[in-house]
């Protein structure tokens, strides 16, 4: 198969875009979390949509798995070529094709880095709102594939709320356009189901995305707590008061000290919990909300409330938050990151449960997460060299995720299902639901060659594939949550 695939690719496309030496392929065997690894048989780095389509056609004809890859910062194994086959890197499709300040939209190729788009839009006073912590590396195409979130999605919505249209290469090599620059064009919302489909329905090569005006005023606060419940009660109180902050993040326990050691932004190492609260909007509203938030933080027992004094300090606080996962490598050499979501009002009990689970399984867990929308990121820290550490981490992780589901929540808020959580999908969806998902997949990709065995449980889209239940990743390189 491997030799046939490479030979067919070399016949069909420019050999310059084909990578096949083992040392080249090794770069494509993992994603941002990386216990799940898989060596591709061959990698292509196409320069145009037409080249992507040509590669897809060749691989599909041979029945080879086709895995699209942006920057490889995913945390659920979505871009890992677990079944071998062809990896299509979109890295060279990195051009911003047009920015339309009147329509507040940009046409981009899918390999454009998230931050690069916001930098380019800045001259028009605009930005691309989805801001995953990986945004300095991750691509718009990857953001679309995973329906990426980020701290500011609390107010501005996740990726799916910011994509207007996309060019998609289907499994048969056909290139289609879904969505439209014109709102409500007649037809089913195919774009809506492609965003977040993790490369299982097709490969997005270009997208028309919304740009959002930069706010007139921004204020950023750090609320410091000696008590965990007080911090989570403040989160509920802010929302109940009718304030939707731009971002409302929580850092708990040992994670705070680790972040501070990494960035020296003024995170108090001895605090039990801190809230990173950002509000933005018109200056009058920001002023009013700042007073309300200060009063709520005091009322709910914050030890101290600090305001970022300038843009530099604000940037530092955010650098700490967005670099939190890497910072936690100071605590233990290996980690596994979870992404469960609960209704906001259930946060206190989930945080308490996380601590109990950590104690019971003798594992360190820090939580650095999007409190405002109930999206937990328990970060399980351990040392794989200790016997049983991996098993304890798996058990702890599953216990927390099950508690999220029991609380009426879900198993992934923004990282995706990929390999990691495909066998947990049955916790929240029944057989009929999964069958309906499989129907969608079969419509777009009847032969099941696009990122096979991802997103859906084994069995529903993927016959005869063996994989460990709850595949757990642990690495010590940089990643972002």
């Amino acid at each position, binding site marked *: 198969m491997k030799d046939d695939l490479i030979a067919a690719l070399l016949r069909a496309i420019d050999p310059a875009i084909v990578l096949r030496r083992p040392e080249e392929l090794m770069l494509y065997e993992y994603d941002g979390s990386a216990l799940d690894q898989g060596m591709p048989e061959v990698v292509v780095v196409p320069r145009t949509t037409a080249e992507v389509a040509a590669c897809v056609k060749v691989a599909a004809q041979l029945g080879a798995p086709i895995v699209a890859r942006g920057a490889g910062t995913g945390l659920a194994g979505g871009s890992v070529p677990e079944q071998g086959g062809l990896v299509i890197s979109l890295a060279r499709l990195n051009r911003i094709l047009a920015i339309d300040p*009147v329509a507040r939209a940009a046409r981009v190729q899918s390999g454009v880095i998230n931050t690069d788009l916001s930098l380019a839009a800045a001259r028009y006073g605009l930005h691309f709102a989805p801001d995953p912590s990986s945004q300095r590396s991750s691509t718009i195409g990857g953001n679309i594939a995973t329906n990426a979130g980020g701290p500011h999605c609390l107010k501005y919505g996740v990726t799916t709320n910011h994509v207007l249209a996309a060019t998609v290469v289907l499994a048969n090599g056909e290139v289609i356009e879904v969505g439209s620059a014109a709102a*409500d064009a007649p*037809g089913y*919302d195919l774009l*809506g189901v492609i965003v977040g489909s993790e490369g299982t329905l097709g490969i997005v090569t270009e997208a028309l995305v919304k740009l959002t*005006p930069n706010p007139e005023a921004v204020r950023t606060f750090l609320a410091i707590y000696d008590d965990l419940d007080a911090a989570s009660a403040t989160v509920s109180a802010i929302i109940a008061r*009718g304030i939707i902050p731009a971002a409302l993040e929580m850092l708990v326990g040992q994670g705070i000290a680790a972040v501070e050691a990494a960035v020296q932004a003024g995170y108090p190492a001895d605090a039990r919990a801190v809230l990173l609260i950002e509000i933005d909007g018109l200056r009058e509203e920001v002023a009013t909300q700042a007073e309300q938030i200060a009063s709520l933080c005091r009322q709910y027992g914050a030890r101290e409330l600090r305001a970022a004094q300038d843009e530099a300090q604000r940037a530092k606080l955010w650098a700490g938050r967005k670099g939190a996962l890497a910072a936690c490598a100071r605590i233990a050499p290996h980690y596994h990151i979870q992404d469960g979501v609960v209704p906001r009002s259930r946060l206190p009990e989930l945080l308490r449960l996380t601590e109990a689970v950590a104690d019971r399984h003798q594992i360190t867990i820090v939580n650095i997460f999007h409190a405002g929308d109930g999206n937990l990121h328990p970060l399980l820290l351990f040392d794989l060299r200790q016997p049983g550490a991996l098993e304890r981490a798996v058990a702890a992780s599953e216990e927390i995720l099950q508690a999220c589901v029991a609380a009426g929540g879900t198993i992934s*808020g923004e990282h995706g299902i990929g390999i990691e959580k495909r066998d947990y999908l049955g916790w*929240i969806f029944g057989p009929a639901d999964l069958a309906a998902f499989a129907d969608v997949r*079969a419509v777009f990709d009847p032969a099941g060659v696009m990122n096979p065995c991802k997103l859906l449980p084994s069995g529903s889209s993927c016959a005869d594939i063996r994989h460990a239940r709850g595949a757990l990743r642990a690495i010590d390189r940089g990643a972002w949550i």
Partner: protein
Amino acid sequence: MNSLSAQPMLPVATYALGDRVPQQFAQPATIAALAEVVATAAHTKTAIVPWGAGTRQFVVDPPARYDVALDLRRLDRVIEYHPADLVIMVEAGMPLGVVQALLAERGQWLPWDPPVPATATIGGLLATAAWGPLRLGYGGPREWLLGMQVVLGDGRIAHSGGRVVKNVAGYDTHKLHLGACGTLGIIATATFKVTPLPERMASVQAIWPTPAAALRAAAAIRQPPLQPVALTIIVTDTVKLTARFAGGAAAVERQLGLAAAACAAAETVIVADDHALWAAQQLLPPNHGLLLRAGVPESALAATVELITSLAQPDLTIFPGLGLIGARWPVEAAAHLPALRRMLAGMGGYAVVESGPAGIDRWGDPPPTIDLMRALRQRWDPAGILNPGRWLVA
């Protein structure tokens, strides 16, 4: 069919569409009963037309076959509402007006204002992708919808999405049912995120001599720091621009001033309590003429207004910032539809007929992805019993 038993309240004629009257109607009171009706119908190839309050049945054609009217208004319960979580889950037969009243008791709302009577149901509004002027500031129902339970055309009950505000598990198949006019399944429940009611809402109205002048003013009113939550230009005998602002009182006040300044050349009034004004400003209701909806990229909006006006004298509702136009043409102007569609397609836009005489081509040429759409429908409604012949994917 169990649920087809004696329901003496409504004669079948209530459910007439065009010149078609169903033989029967069903009013299931549970989702299980709904699924049973659909499963049985699929088995017997009985054509079903789902009904809410019937306020938007006009946006699609009468059915090609019509055996059973499936009235969903007994599915009218709130399944969950947790104000602290800003999430509500309701059955699809619940009227939007009832949902809004319930939310308002807790100082919340769904910023979704389709121009329909308060009796219009959640399911019908979602199925027809109904929207209103607040879409500019808050997005349409797609941005507020978190999940759905749907009875597919073969009677399967399938759900997607969830009850939390962030969720990437599974495919977002609920988005496929939004605007599908019931051709992929029948919406049984819907879950929305909701948001606090703004402290204040108020509007500026200005009368302009021409649509072009009003469009220029609208563009100025969309420039930061102004953030109108709704913006319409209604062109009849006059050209009336209305801009609505919502939020904290002081921020609204400043925006009203800035908007009035942008309209300094026009006759301008500030409407402090604007709820009655917007309630009255309906999208053009259907009459015996043609009601068109044109969508174009925002940059083509002014050219589209000129184009529609040059082909036939219309009444217009223009939505600057959304690239959408509602236009009422005299019925004789239907002859211009192909030309209008051709020119709009050249600008990346389209025109559909939301209301018009029987037999009119409502959708124009199908999109290039029509085969995928048909394949999807074939999967979920293999017997073709859901609203046959009514919509683009017939």
